[in-house]
C-alpha cells in the first residue's frame, strides 16, 4: 500500500484518471505528486477535446445509393434488385 503511494502513475493509470476511473488508493499519490498532476491535467484536457469530436454525416441519400448496388439474398437463393419505388 505504502509503495503504491510513492509510485508515479503509469500511462494506463493516467488514462484511468483522465476518465475518472482511477482507484482511490492511487488518487492518494496524485494528491501529493505535482509531477503526476501536471501530466494528468494535460492528458485530461486532451481527452476532453477528443471526446468532443463530432461524428459527421454523409450526403443525403447515402442509404439509397448503397441499396441500389447491393444484392439482397432471399431465403430461396434468388436475388432482388433495388426497390422499384426508389
Amino acid at each position, binding site marked *: 500500500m505504502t509503495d503504491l503511494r510513492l509510485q508515479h502513475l503509469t*500511462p494506463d493509470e493516467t488514462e484511468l484518471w483522465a476518465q475518472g476511473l482511477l482507484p482511490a488508493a492511487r488518487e492518494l499519490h496524485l494528491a501529493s505528486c505535482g509531477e503526476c498532476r501536471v501530466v494528468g491535467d494535460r*492528458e485530461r484536457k*486532451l481527452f476532453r477535446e477528443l*471526446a468532443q469530436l463530432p461524428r459527421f*454525416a*454523409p450526403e443525403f441519400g*447515402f*442509404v439509397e445509393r*448503397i*441499396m441500389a448496388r447491393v444484392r439482397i439474398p432471399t431465403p430461396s437463393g434468388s436475388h432482388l434488385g433495388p426497390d422499384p419505388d426508389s
Partner: protein
Amino acid sequence: MVAWAKQGHEAAFRELVRRYERPLFSLLYRMVRDRALAEDLAQETFIKVLNGIGSYNPQFKFSSWIFKIANNAAIDHLRKRDLDTLSLDGSPHATTPEEMHATALQLGDRGESPLAELEARELGGAIEQAIARLRPEYRACILLRHVEGFSYEEIAATLELPLGTVKTYIHRARNELRGYLGDRRE
C-alpha cells in the same frame, strides 16, 4: 440484426447502413480528409460488407469487421496516393506523411468550392489538424478509441495488431497530439 440481414431482409440491410453510416463515414473522412472520397470509400465498404454478409463469422464482432474493412480501404488509398504523389512530383524531400499529404492536397486542389469550404469548417479546428498530422496507423487507433469508444482489445481485433502495439500506438499518438496542440497554444 446481422442474423436477420444474413437471411436477406432488405429492411435489416438498411438498418445496418443507418446504424453505421455516421461512425464509418466519420472515420474515413478523418483518415482521408476529403468528403467525396470518404463517401466513396464508405460506400465500397458497405457494399462489400452487405454482399459478403453470408460469410460473416459471428465470433468476430460485427463492428470490428466493418471497421476493419473501412480502415483497410482508407490505408490502401493513402498508400496509393503517397505513391502517386511521389511519382508525380518526384520530390524526394516529401518523406513524412504530412509532407506527402501537403503535396497531395496541392495536387488535388479543388479551389474554393462549397465542398472545400465545408471541409475546412469541419476539419479546420486545432484538434482535427493535430489528428491529421498523425501517421495513419496512429490516427485510426486514436479515432477508434476516442470517437468510437472501442476498447484496446477491440482495436487490436479490428486493426489486426497485437494488443501491446495498439497501446504503444495510442500512447505515442497522444504524446504527439499534446505536442502539436501545445505548439499552437504557446
